[in-house]
């Protein structure tokens, strides 16, 4: 039986998590704009607040006030549901992310598995958006996204499994605890797993060089071409929340999570996560995009064999 206290507890946690997501997504949007601007010898947002920190807030207000345009001939239900299906899994993923020693919503004993399951739900939303828009560019974008995410799921999961094998647990806190003093990234096989993970995760969240579902120069904006106002903002928030999550998972699985000297755990965790986010942004603003067939070829011909090989080696190392 749920007591009143439990319900209040759930509500408080929910508000904290949602608040954190909103703030973090806005911060990441601003930060990405700043990083890209400085890479390109520009200033980026400078007007709203100190160096434009409140720019994302202004944009959010603008998007909230915008008219919501439904394209003629759209599949209404699918079209309306799509942004929620993109956002909700990324919010749900926060449940198992350990921010500190006791700073975790719920340390599920299937934590890693739960994350793997959630990461593939997002594709349904993107495909729904592509289909529901009744736009050919969106449809191509949705199709590409489905193909891409299904391909990259396999190396992603395999590289996460390697970490679980090492820690002999799927629980995120136990994985962190297993890295006490010696981070996973320092093992050669784990380093390889990290590289595979970060590449597939970049593909999973549709970022350059794997941003073919929304390929700006080919498909205008891909699956979210027809979205405007708050629906577009939800795709945006979903994208940046996912970016945070994949970096957080990488920090947890390979960089020792919240562990670190002197500073409190949460601070270490955020430093590591934002460090990885910065690398992803740096990569995004440097490289061109791959083509669809090259992308699939890379997943199936390179990443999947490499992760299977890595899995076998890790198993052998553990049994030895």
């Amino acid at each position: 039986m749920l007591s009143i206290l439990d319900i209040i507890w759930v509500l408080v946690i929910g508000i904290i998590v949602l608040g954190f997501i909103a703030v973090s997504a806005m911060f990441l949007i601003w930060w990405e704009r700043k990083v890209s601007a400085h890479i390109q010898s520009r200033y980026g947002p400078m007007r709203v607040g100190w160096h434009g920190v409140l720019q994302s807030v202004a944009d959010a207000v603008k998007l909230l006030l915008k008219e919501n345009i439904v394209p003629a001939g759209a599949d209404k239900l699918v079209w309306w549901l799509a942004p929620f299906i993109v956002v909700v899994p990324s919010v749900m993923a926060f449940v198992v992310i350990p921010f500190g020693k006791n700073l975790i919503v719920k340390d599920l004993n299937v934590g890693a598995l739960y994350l793997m399951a959630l990461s593939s739900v997002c594709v349904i939303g993107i495909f729904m958006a592509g289909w529901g828009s009744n736009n050919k560019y969106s449809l191509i974008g949705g199709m590409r996204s489905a193909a891409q995410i299904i391909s990259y799921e396999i190396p992603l999961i395999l590289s996460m499994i390697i970490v679980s094998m090492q820690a002999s647990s799927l629980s995120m806190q136990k994985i962190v605890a297993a890295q006490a003093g010696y981070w996973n990234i320092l093992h050669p096989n784990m380093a390889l797993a990290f590289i595979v993970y970060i590449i597939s995760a970049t593909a999973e969240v549709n970022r350059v060089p794997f941003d073919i579902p929304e390929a700006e120069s080919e498909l205008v904006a891909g699956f979210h071409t027809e979205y405007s106002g708050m629906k577009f903002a939800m795709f945006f928030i979903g994208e940046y929340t996912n970016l945070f999550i994949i970096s957080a998972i990488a920090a947890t699985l390979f960089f020792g999570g919240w562990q670190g000297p002197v500073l409190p755990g949460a601070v270490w965790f955020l430093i590591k996560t934002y460090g990885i986010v910065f690398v992803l942004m740096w990569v995004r603003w440097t490289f061109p995009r791959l083509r669809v067939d090259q992308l699939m070829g890379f997943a199936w011909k390179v990443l999947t064999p490499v992760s299977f090989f890595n899995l076998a080696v890790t198993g052998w190392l553990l049994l030895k």
Partner: protein
Amino acid sequence: MIKLAKNFVVGTWSLIKGLAVTIKYFFRPTVTLQYPTEKQPMSECYRGLVGLRPEKCIVCYQCVKICPTACLAITHKQEDKKKTLETFKYNMELCCFCGLCQQVCPTSAIIMTNIYEISVYDRKKLDINLLDMKKYDEWTNTTIK
């Protein structure tokens, strides 16, 4: 197999080189200007809107004849031998800022000002009489502070 390994190494190295270039510029100072507050200095011979010094005009119609887009139109009063300007219409909607009128003017009555912020809400504002140069003050005031 060796070739494949070599390709892999070369490819990875090329990607790292690309990253090196972008991070190099990340720490370099920026080159852009904060436009409405900071403005680029215009060169001395900048060709902005056409301006007129009516006291110098001798009504020779050279500028009207040379204008490729026919954006200038003059009417004058003839008082025995002396011509005086009546109107000097300038349609900046048509003007292509080529500077030919300034070049042909024998008395330098026509000048190219350095006003370049010329967007307006009303098209009629673009067709003006240059004898009333005070209009230009309005243009310079419309910029965002």
